[in-house]
């Protein structure tokens, strides 16, 4: 008799989700689904608000990446005002985004994912977390927590607070960075570099003993999407969209983010609140694409800073054309931390950061505006339509985790097929399935514009839809 296994809730990710594994009559995995079970409705209740309030409202979508929403929303506001923001404002926004990428990637690696490959898949779940990491290697855990703190302090130095700063606004930013703030950031850079380099060493060592995981955790062909600079370099805030396939060939390039709807479709799954975007020209399921660190490093040709470029070269050698294993998201994330630190180091020397010319002023000059930015988890779009007085008529948010929805489903199915035989699933196997999701560092609060902590449920479902087993954790 066919069966269905349900993992509910999924742990150590941001948000609420569950996983269903479908077994056929022979007890083999026939399919698996990743369901996001939370809903918040930001797109709807923001209607009628002034566009100038949107950066602060949408920042409240998430406590981990409020900065990403703040910046994308401010950019959408810039487009509605149809202004070119002062150069200093753009540089300051970029600096905050770098702080955001460093803190979020540090959180993903040290707090959420590293416990699996440092403490081991088979470690007891009660200690297989950041507290277990603190017990096992206090120095490493401490340095990881401090790396995240470093990123958060950049956000605070610019925006006045670590979480939900209302600092980026349509037209620019509200304040610059004084010499004291710069000195504070500069002083902590050496420690941040040392932690990032150490984490790279740990991951590359772990990779040697995790060759199987690298082959099975979301290793498949797909497209990749990310922003790139005009010369094809790594981008995180400006630039235009590039799509590549898994051979590394560029299939669409230098696309103005405002045209995203010409290239991306959104479909709706019955079993999840998370929508499923796809590359329109290839339809479903061929239009599956991935975003985030893995995709950004796949679509870019260089990073532009020495340490990160050296690491990018090694990364690119792990694939034929493109790196296709989602397990290597972890590696890409660590390379991006180094890229971010180098870019921060460079940015701090820019005298423009102390400029007083930070905010352009204008009314509504365009009834439609799109803002795109690379959030830590991937490309984020805020798309607003306003009336003549600047009140929102419609809001469309496409969030990184949404882009990765199809790939996460595929990853869960791939891992389940490899490890699950019949309905007796040991806990470490469940954890491997969850880790498939953790590779993407999903933020379900953002992707459904919903909030919460992330417990995990896995359900095992028979061929007639009967739930045979349900494992709940968290």
């Amino acid at each position, binding site marked *: 008799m066919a069966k269905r296994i349900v993992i509910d809730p999924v742990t150590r990710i941001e948000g609420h989700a569950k996983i269903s594994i479908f077994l056929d009559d022979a007890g083999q995995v026939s399919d698996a689904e990743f369901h996001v079970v939370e809903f918040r409705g930001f797109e709807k209740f923001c209607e*009628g608000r*002034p566009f100038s*309030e949107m950066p602060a409202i949408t920042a409240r979508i998430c406590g981990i990446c409020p900065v990403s929403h703040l910046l994308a929303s401010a950019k959408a506001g810039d487009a509605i005002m149809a202004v070119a923001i002062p150069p200093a404002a753009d540089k300051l926004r970029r600096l905050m985004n770098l702080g955001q990428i460093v803190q979020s990637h540090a959180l993903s690696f040290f707090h959420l994912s590293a416990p699996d490959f440092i403490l081991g898949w088979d470690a007891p779940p009660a200690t297989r977390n950041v507290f277990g990491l603190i017990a096992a290697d206090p120095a490493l855990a401490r340095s990881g927590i401090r790396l995240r703190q470093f990123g958060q302090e950049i956000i605070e130095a610019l925006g006045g607070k670590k979480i939900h700063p209302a600092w980026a606004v349509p037209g620019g930013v509200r304040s610059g960075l004084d010499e004291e703030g710069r000195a504070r950031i500069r002083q902590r850079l050496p420690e941040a570099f040392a932690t990032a380099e150490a984490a790279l060493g740990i991951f590359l060592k772990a990779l040697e003993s995790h060759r199987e995981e690298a082959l099975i955790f979301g290793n498949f062909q797909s497209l990749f999407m990310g922003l790139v600079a005009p010369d094809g370099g790594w981008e995180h805030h400006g630039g235009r969209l590039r799509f590549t396939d898994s051979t590394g060939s560029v299939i669409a390039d230098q696309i103005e983010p405002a045209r995203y709807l010409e290239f991306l479709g959104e479909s709706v799954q019955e079993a999840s609140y998370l929508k499923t975007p796809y590359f329109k020209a290839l339809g479903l399921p061929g239009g599956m694409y991935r975003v985030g660190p893995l995709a950004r490093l796949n679509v870019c040709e260089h990073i532009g800073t020495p340490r990160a470029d050296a690491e990018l070269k090694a990364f690119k050698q792990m694939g034929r054309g493109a790196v296709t294993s989602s397990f290597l998201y972890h590696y890409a994330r660590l390379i991006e931390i180094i890229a971010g630190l180098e870019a921060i180091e460079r940015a701090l020397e820019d005298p423009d950061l102390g400029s007083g010319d930070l905010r352009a*002023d204008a*009314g509504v000059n365009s009834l439609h505006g799109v803002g795109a930015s690379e959030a830590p988890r991937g490309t984020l779009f805020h798309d607003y339509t306003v009336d003549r007085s600047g*009140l929102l008529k419609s809001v469309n948010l496409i969030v990184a985790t949404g882009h990765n929805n199809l790939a996460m489903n595929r990853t869960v199915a791939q891992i389940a097929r490899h490890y699950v035989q019949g309905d007796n699933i040991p806990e470490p196997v469940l954890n491997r399935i969850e880790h498939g999701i953790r590779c993407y560092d999903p933020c379900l609060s953002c992707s459904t514009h919903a909030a919460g902590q992330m417990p995990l449920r896995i359900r095992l479902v028979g061929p007639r839809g009967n739930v045979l087993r349900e494992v709940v954790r968290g």
Partner: protein
Amino acid sequence: MAAKTLIIDGKQVSAQDDATILDAATDAGIKIPTLCHLGGVYDVGACRLCLVEVAGAKKLFSACTTRVAEGMEVHTDTERLRKYRRMTLELLFAERNHVCSVCVSNGKCELQTLAWQNGMEHVGYDYSFPRWGVDATHHLFGLDHNRCVLCQRCVRVCWHIEGAGTKNVAGRGARSAIIDDLKQPWGDSETCTSCGKCVLACPTGALFNKGSTVGEMSRDLNKLEYIVNARLKKQWIALE
């Protein structure tokens, strides 16, 4: 002008005979919470936050509209008054959609300040979540009815300081709303002089400068009193 003597919170106070209890208390350094009161315009006793107890009377009196009387004994800070003030504040929060964290007046809002000063830790009433909109048709200012507490300070400054008579109140009870002229979009008003006094007078984030983002609205209420003093007393002295 004759003076009256009275006792406020056990303190002997002397006041002019046309003074209100609020005036007398303020002069004596006794703070009574207010919301709809605004220096420079007449009082209407709308918000009920300045309610005080007067010895010998069962009912409560609004300090802003009750004149002092000889020998009056006033209590401004009793358990009963504290309870009613918290209730009043909770009802104000429950009536419309006050979301401080994303409001243009966050950190500078009189309603928010009163709530924490008076120990309002939560709202005990069900929120009514009414569907109110924003009028952003004026080229400089916006009116968000969600954040309006109907104190009518904007109406009073519009009529009695600016003299334009643009702002009014329409409707009854909880459905009352601030309107412009004959309830038309603010931007279409023929009487509005765009002076901005209503925006200065607003205690919450209901009236705001367009383009304001979270916590950016700061208002200098002294400007209103300065204009009134200049006009009525021929005094051009900036108030601290």
